[in-house]
């Protein structure tokens, strides 16, 4: 079984500052993928960043980067130079290479303070 845990229901950050959202997971699979999705008030889930478990290098997409600690089963998202448009619900997700299903955390609501 796979589980994803996000222990921070809410976070806030000042505009232009950096914030880190936490995610831990559990899986018995050796080959899997981890994701961060953003859901703004418009409700459209948008892929923020994707990490293949076999890659040691942390994924980066512009202001978004991850800290992937495979042994600790930790997958945190760092948002640098936060912008008002970053305000949203963020979901961490996991899928194994052997299956179709994604497993989602319960989400972290991020507020960006002007």
């Amino acid at each position, binding site marked *: 079984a796979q589980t994803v845990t996000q222990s921070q229901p809410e976070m806030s950050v000042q505009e232009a500052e950096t914030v880190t959202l936490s995610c831990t997971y559990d899986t018995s699979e050796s080959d899997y*993928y981890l994701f961060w999705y953003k859901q703004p008030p418009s409700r459209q889930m948008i*892929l923020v960043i994707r990490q293949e478990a076999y890659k040691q290098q942390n994924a980066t997409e512009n202001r978004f980067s991850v800290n992937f600690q495979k042994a600790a089963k930790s997958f945190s998202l760092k948002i640098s130079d936060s912008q008002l448009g970053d305000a949203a619900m963020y*979901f961490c997700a996991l899928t194994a290479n052997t299956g*179709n*299903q994604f497993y*989602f955390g*319960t989400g972290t609501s991020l507020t960006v303070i002007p």
Partner: protein
Amino acid sequence: DVKVTQSSRYLVKRTGEKVFLECVQDMDHENMFWYRQDPGLGLRLIYFSYDVKMKEKGDIPEGYSVSREKKERFSLILESASTNQTSMYLCASRPANYYGYTFGSGTRLTVV
């Protein structure tokens, strides 16, 4: 860009009604999914389909059924709507060889 379109953004139905939620994707994706999103529970998988006329149960299939007669369309059916099915319903799709979803904008269903 891949588009996943859900036919209704908001829906209000009465208890006992049969409800159809429609999802259409335009990029020939093999896999399609229906999730339910509730506060504090995240997203939970109801059903998915990896091919036309094929379906698999997810974690919470009770009270729901699905139909996939054409590759681009995946329908979620509430056979007899109940108030505990009031929720946000999200459709997603992905191709067979890529592990990343494209989501629709969601349907917020209220059962009264």
